[in-house]
């Protein structure tokens, strides 16, 4: 009987989390869809001007900025993340690895506002002084996001390296391959699906980041044309304008959320799909 009660309680908790997800989805669509229908999906998705006070709700610059910033983050994050993964899992003794691992996981525990603050105080003035422009830029955002996605990339790709049968490494070494050849030619390709999944999850993290980006991207609603331009992503558009929005403007922010919802869903589905694929 006691077991049943506990079972019920657990079921309740599990169900309520699904219910909450369903409610969030429902409300985002209920609030946002009417506006997309009102101004037309094309004008909303491909419109280049966002001037809510004049009824112009084009989010194309923000979609582009979101991908631009994310791409920049991957540019920094992937090489750094992969290097860390290889270093921790292959090149240093496991005892030292246990020191590194918590340090990297700690990166994930730092609140994003701290990353944003650090970017604003340290990176932005550097960029302004050495590259010109206002400093609040895609470059600054990409660098900060690159650091923020490191834990995701490193943890998951290290797990996928660890999950490989030991015979892969032993076999490669027995055939006379050097340690580096084994890593680069055997282990990494074999763990490819897990590594790609980690990158895609990192991408999801990057696209969804809001607080740090509000602080360092500058939030201009213009189509960015270089890494030194200020930009506004989908998330920061919602974050920065939610407080004051009402009527159509508010709905347009929910509609921005719908687009974000689809992008994140697509990325997560892709990551799940890729990580399930077996290595042959």
């Amino acid at each position, binding site marked *: 009987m006691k077991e049943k009660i506990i079972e019920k309680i657990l079921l309740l908790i599990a169900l309520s989390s699904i219910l909450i997800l369903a409610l969030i989805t429902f409300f985002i669509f209920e609030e946002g869809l009417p506006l997309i229908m009102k101004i037309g999906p094309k004008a909303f998705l491909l419109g280049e001007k966002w*001037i809510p006070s004049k009824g112009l709700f084009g989010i194309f610059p923000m979609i582009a900025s979101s991908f631009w910033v994310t791409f920049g983050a991957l540019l920094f994050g992937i090489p750094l993340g992969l290097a860390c993964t290889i270093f921790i899992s292959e090149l240093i003794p496991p005892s030292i690895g246990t020191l590194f691992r918590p340090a990297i996981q700690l990166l994930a525990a730092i609140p994003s506002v701290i990353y944003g603050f650090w970017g604003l105080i340290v990176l932005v003035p550097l960029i302004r002084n050495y590259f010109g422009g206002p400093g609040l830029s895609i470059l600054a955002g990409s660098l900060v996001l690159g650091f923020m996605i490191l834990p995701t990339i490193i943890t998951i790709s290290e797990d996928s390296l660890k999950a490989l049968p030991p015979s892969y490494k032993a076999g490669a070494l027995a055939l006379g391959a050097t340690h580096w050849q084994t890593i680069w030619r055997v282990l990494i390709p074999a763990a490819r699906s897990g590594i790609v999944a980690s990158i895609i999850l990192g991408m999801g993290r990057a696209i969804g980041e809001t607080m740090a980006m*509000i602080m360092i991207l500058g939030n*201009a609603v213009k189509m960015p044309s270089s890494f030194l331009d200020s930009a506004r992503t989908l998330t920061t558009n919602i974050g920065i304008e939610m407080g004051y929005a009402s009527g159509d403007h508010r709905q347009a922010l929910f509609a921005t959320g719908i687009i974000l919802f689809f992008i994140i869903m697509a990325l997560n589905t892709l990551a799940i799909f890729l990580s399930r694929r077996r290595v042959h």
Partner: protein
Amino acid sequence: MSKAPNPKQNRFGYWELGFENYLGFGIWNLGFLFLLLFILFGLGCQRSKAGITVAGSTSVEPFAELLAEEYMIIHPKSHIYVQGGGSTAGIEAAITRTANIGMSSRNLSGEELKLYSVTVAKDAIAIIVHPTNRIGNLPLDQIREVFSGKIMNWKELGGPNKPIDIVTREEGSGTRESFQKFVMGKEDISLGALVQDSNGAVRQVIANDASAIGYISLGLVNDQVKAVSISGVEPSLANVNNGKYTLVRPFLFVFNGEPVGEAKSFLDFVLSSSAQKLLLKEGLVPVVQRLE
């Protein structure tokens, strides 16, 4: 419960329940969950009845907080909750009575005019630049051209050869609306302008960027930034009072119907000379002319 289906033991030795059974429990439990939430919610509402809520413009918020603190010292039994959210949200909160008092840093328009509103103070908007900027005076039409993106280099204003970084507030902000009305008129603020979501954030960006220009409440100008004169008129309390400085907006308290009880008492306090003196000290322009 007597008709519950016989649970079957599965191969792991755990008791398996039918799917319908799960669903049944789920729905009952959800019912309990909602009941629980309801009770909690009810308790929460009960508690907030002990005080009044003042919500709205983030420009008014810091001053309202200050006044609320003072008020609560004089009236220890009452409690005033001050929340931000923006002018529009504040007015809406007053309409729906979510808040007893809505704070607005812009004039009411359209439907909103039916509300009972009181100007509790006035605030000037200052155009600010980096303290090292040599430019100390700008004509209004040049400011407009800078913010609309027609003038893009300080050189054109007599400064160094450096691109201008425009800093503005986000759409819907009361400060932005006032700036749009007073300075821009029908022109749009450049889409390339940096957007920050508070007076403090604008000031921070301009304090760090030697080629930036922006606008914030006069009361929040400090020595990190420099407020420029507009067409030769210096942004000062004296010039605001004598009407020479025109970038002035009202800080409104908005009520749904005549204020009563605690809300009325707080309003009276805010309009008292001691409270107005406090606002003057904080850089606002008092509405009560004679302050002893």
